[in-house]
């Protein structure tokens, strides 16, 4: 199915057809279920220290090719460019409540 390849080309991983839906809208079409996942940090095989926020980029020995630290830095810089006064890498276990600036608050 070319559509699955298209999802992979977009950047999705774990792309899979989930079976037929049982409803076909025409003799030339088939109802199908498809699922795909956006890569997470775990896909980059990095190690994050929850206490210090240090990011350990994948090593060459692990066969990784991404520089996670520089990606995080660029994202933080982009936040500044978009208007943030400060940025900070935080522990993922820490809950944040957004109190303003979000049009979907309380919705």
């Amino acid at each position: 199915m070319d559509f699955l390849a298209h999802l992979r080309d977009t950047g999705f991983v774990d792309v899979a057809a989930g079976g037929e839906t049982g409803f076909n809208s025409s003799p030339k079409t088939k109802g199908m279920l498809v699922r795909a996942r956006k890569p997470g940090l775990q896909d980059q095989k990095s190690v994050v220290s929850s206490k210090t926020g240090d990011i350990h980029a994948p090593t060459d020995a692990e066969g990784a090719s991404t520089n996670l630290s520089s990606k995080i830095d660029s994202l933080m810089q982009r936040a500044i460019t978009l208007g943030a006064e400060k940025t900070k890498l935080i522990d993922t276990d820490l809950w944040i409540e957004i109190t303003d600036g979000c049009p979907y608050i309380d919705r």
Partner: protein
Amino acid sequence: MRYDAAIVADLPETVAGSFCGVGNPFSLGEIPPGSRLLDIGCGAGVDALVASKVVGPSGKVMGIDITPEMIRRAEANKKEIGAENVVFQLSRVQDLVGIDSSFDVVMSNGVLNLIPEKEEAIKAAFRLLKPGGWFFLADQFLVDPASKDLKARIQSWFQ
């Protein structure tokens, strides 16, 4: 289509009768309570309202559609069941900005086949998902090559 029987039974007939999907995207994986879910092409909102029960009060659901009449119907359905964790918005998915990486699940049921700008829509779904988030899709796929005549007819229809 094997939707959760308990949830479907809880929907008023006027709401359930609005369904026009082509499959059950909920069958593709677990959606934990508290999840944030986007339904692309929500229509009258049936899947979004089902999702509102799946994600529970701590979750949030957004349903978008490009048809004003469908959004109006979705809002009416939402009012009928009293869902408080769902919002409906008139929008194309690619026009959603400022909320990148917001959703645990992006879902679409019988809609992608209707979107001319499929590549843009898929890229938008990717952009809107949180890292690690899932795209659940039920749709109709062409399995028999369309004849040249059919392609010409479709092309002329868009002109």
